């Protein structure tokens, strides 16, 4: 199955809300840019009904180059995690139900 992309989201705003193509594209860009900027300021993003984007700081840990077997430390880093909201989880689980019926 194909994936939902920015272009299709913009199309949706054009069709459902009557935004013009320019406005729809800007809107979709701003939506993801603002979420990204918030996360880049180390600020969690909570979108009720959909889910939360959280930040976690990881300490340095030992790693290995899988090709050479050489030990190299994996540096300390900050990562984004997504925790789906209750509403989204329930909707997605319903998909699993519909899959097991055929």
């Amino acid at each position, binding site marked *: *199955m*194909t*994936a*939902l*992309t*920015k272009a*299709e*989201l913009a199309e*949706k*705003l054009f069709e*459902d*809300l009557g*935004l013009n193509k320019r*406005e729809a594209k*800007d*809107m*979709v860009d*701003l*939506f*993801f840019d*603002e*979420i*990204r900027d*918030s*996360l*880049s*300021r*180390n*600020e*969690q*993003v*909570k*979108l*009720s*009904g*959909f*889910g939360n*984007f959280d*930040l976690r*700081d990881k300490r340095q840990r030992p790693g290995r180059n899988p090709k050479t077997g050489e030990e190299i430390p994996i540096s*300390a*880093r*900050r*990562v*984004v*995690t*997504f925790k*789906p909201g209750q*509403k*989204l*989880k329930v*909707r*997605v*689980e*319903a*998909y*699993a*139900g519909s*899959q*097991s019926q055929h």
Partner: protein
Amino acid sequence: MTKSELIEKIISRQPQLSPKDVELAVKTLLDAMSQSLSSGERIEIRGFGSFSLHYRAPRLGRNPKTGEAVDLDGKFVPHFKPGKELRDQVNDSLHDKH
């Protein structure tokens, strides 16, 4: 940042649209994304990341109140994989502070 703060941010940067339109647009986007995932379709946003479904196998669970064993069906759960740009931008924020 909450959904209403996100809406406020976009309003301040999007003078062409009325606040009402921005609010409706944000809700429409989130709904389209939920709709896509709940019909088993992935979401791919370049530079931001992708959302897909991960399968969880059926397992034997337990009712925490009674201790009784319950069969739990297999299910799908939403999963997000941050894209390179988001990963890098977030990771840079860690190093900027030190």
